[in-house]
């Protein structure tokens, strides 16, 4: 890999180029704006793919085609929907709290975009390389409930209020086991930095080399994060058959669109965290052995054969970590969609029972075992 081009080289080259012709503060400003816009755009592209994927997955699981009218196999359906949402009136109910009603969707969008900052997309490709990365994500993602509560309260609608209250109880509870399963991996990796966690998995993903407890932590994290995203079977905040549309009952037009977008951004962020922690982020799949064909397999995975190629072709290898990163991202998202279109919804007391009686004790026991593994040095 040494001779091949790295993202850090590219970024350093861009930085040099800008510094050569501009004042340092301007360079900083431009880099800040360009980097964040790039991250948001990348995420929005993911969201577009996710929405299309959700519709197709739902369709095929429900013996339907899914969207197949607008464009080739309905790929343009989402754009038609966005145009529709933009053209619709953003209706505010008369007795609503007007300020909070308008602020709520924007706030929840901001919160979910903030959680994007410490995510490591590729080697050296990270917006904010901080040593509290994972902690920051967990802290920010628990703030998402404020937007939902705001929306529910300000709508002056009983369905919306009930949805928001449910969502509050749900997110506060599930934060715990999600946090504990993150702590398990942090204990294994010994760092909170997302890049550091990914690099610690260079000889195998944590889900494989962390023994059974890491696998349990992964399952608990997937369940808890599905609940945190208000996805079915934990979609009590929306609960279509009970509360019509839950906290966004009164929203229309693009304000509703933002809530919709928000749901997918949350899913994206949660899946990115899951792939970072458990599935090795942008690390390709390496076999943790060192003999004959396993060695050859690892070499292929590390793109060793490209080293002899001309430099202009080895640019292609830049995309390799990204392929793995997005592949894992969409794999986890597929799992969440799969759950949504299979399971019935839980009741509110069952939801809390699941967390406090099952997931939380299990994840505490799990964390203790992981701590023992780390202390005794049993992991690979």
């Amino acid at each position, binding site marked *: 890999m040494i001779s091949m081009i790295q993202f850090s080289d590219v970024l350093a080259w861009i930085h040099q180029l800008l510094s050569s012709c501009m004042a340092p503060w301007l360079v900083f400003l431009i880099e800040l704006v360009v980097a964040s816009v790039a991250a948001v755009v990348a995420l929005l592209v993911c969201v577009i793919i996710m929405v299309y994927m959700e519709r197709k997955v739902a369709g095929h699981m429900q013996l339907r085609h899914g969207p197949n009218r607008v464009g080739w196999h309905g790929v343009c359906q989402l754009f038609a929907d966005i145009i529709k949402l933009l053209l619709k009136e953003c209706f505010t109910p008369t007795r609503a709290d007007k300020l909070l009603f308008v602020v709520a969707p924007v706030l929840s969008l901001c919160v979910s975009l903030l959680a994007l900052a410490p995510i490591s997309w590729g080697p050296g490709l990270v917006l904010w390389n901080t040593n509290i990365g994972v902690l920051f994500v967990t802290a920010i993602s628990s703030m998402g409930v404020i937007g939902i509560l705001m929306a529910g309260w300000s709508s002056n609608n*009983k369905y919306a209020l009930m949805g928001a209250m449910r969502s509050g109880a749900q997110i506060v509870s599930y934060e715990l086991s999600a946090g504990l399963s993150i702590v398990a991996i942090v204990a294994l990796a010994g760092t909170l930095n997302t890049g550091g966690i990914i690099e610690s998995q260079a000889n195998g993903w944590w889900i494989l080399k962390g023994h059974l407890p890491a696998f349990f932590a992964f399952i608990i994290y997937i369940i808890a994060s599905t609940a945190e995203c208000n996805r079915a*079977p934990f979609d009590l905040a929306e609960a279509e*058959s*009970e509360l*019509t549309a839950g906290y966004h009952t009164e929203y229309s037009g693009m304000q509703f669109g933002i809530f919709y977008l928000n749901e997918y951004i949350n899913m994206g962020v949660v899946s990115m965290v899951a792939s970072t922690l458990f599935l090795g982020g942008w690390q390709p799949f390496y076999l943790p052995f060192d003999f004959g064909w396993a060695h050859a397999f690892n070499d292929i995975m590390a793109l060793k054969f490209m080293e002899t190629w001309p430099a202009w072709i080895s640019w292609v290898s830049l995309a390799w970590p990204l392929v793995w990163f997005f592949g894992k991202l969409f794999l986890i998202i597929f799992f969440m969609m799969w759950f949504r279109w299979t399971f*019935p919804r839980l*009741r*509110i*007391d069952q939801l809390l029972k699941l967390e406090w009686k099952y997931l939380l004790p299990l994840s505490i026991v799990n964390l203790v075992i992981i701590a023992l593994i780390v202390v005794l040095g049993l992991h690979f």
Partner: protein
Amino acid sequence: MENPIVTPSELKTEEFVVNIGPQHPATHGVLRVEATLDGEIIKDVLPHLGYIHRGIEKMTESLGYKQSIFLTSRMDYLSAHINNHVCALAIEKAAQIEVPARAKAIRIIMDELQRLTSHELWWGSCAMDIGAVTPFFLAFRDRERILELFEQNTGNRLTMSYIIPGGVMNDVRPDFVPKLKALIKSIKEYRKEYDQLITGNFIFQHRTQGIGILSKEQAISLGCTGPTARASGLSCDIRKLYPYDGYEKLDFKEVIDYGCDNWARYVVRMEEMNQSIHIIEQLLDNLPTGDYRTKLKGVLKLPAGEYYQRVESARGELGVYIVSDGGAKPYRMKFRTPCYSNLGAVKPISVGMKIADLMANMATIDLVIPDMDR
């Protein structure tokens, strides 16, 4: 100066009223349920009817007996054949019309197929009320097969007006029996998928077991019938108690469960589907030949008097009460529809439960709104 600190005894919670319906995804129609809630817990339920009242009973008074039958398809549109059947039976009883054996067999096959479609749709919508969307599509796939058979043999898919006084409107197609045999085979396959997806599902079982307890005494005093009452241990299958059109010759079980909860109602309906398949299979191999209807006069007149006939609809006991003054039009035609009585059970089984349970309760009682309002 007043103490600004609020003690817990001063913190009050307030009950509030939520209108579920008339436009709501869970009511599957225009029923309005006024639910008084304390947080998530239901304190009171008050159903309001009348949003889809079409005056079917009054309309029959200005139509002839034959024409009234097509109106009955519109009451419980999910068991149109059975609605037509009760009306035809009452008229036959009053006018003492003999029905050919073939017509009787076809009627029973259609009734049981109709019960299958109704229960399949109920299964889908019940799962949807509990939060799973995919079963709804599975249910529609299987129901579609039966509706295709209806379309081929009766001409219509939903409101058939096929069973008429004196027999059935037209004979079944020659390929009816082989097609039905293939259909029964595929329905049995599909039933396994139902169990795989929903019956065995842990979440679904926990959502239904022990929820919505309707005791036998309550079921009797509220006049509940059909699977709703049979799940409370009440034997009330009209096909067994007051057999009509040859049900007495067929071998089938009256499905009774003593669980009294939503799960029991679910199990009873699922088992009833098996029994329906069993009934159809008995008739298929020896479908009587001969006439499919007795030709009647153009204008049917019933002798003056009062007549009552009941059948087992997909939702319970469906009765029709005809008062005739000897003319060509009924003096009064009153329907005793199962959903109207079963709706009474919603309040006693929902009070004290969570709001999500109200949806599950309404789903397992299997309410069809036009059947209540008529």
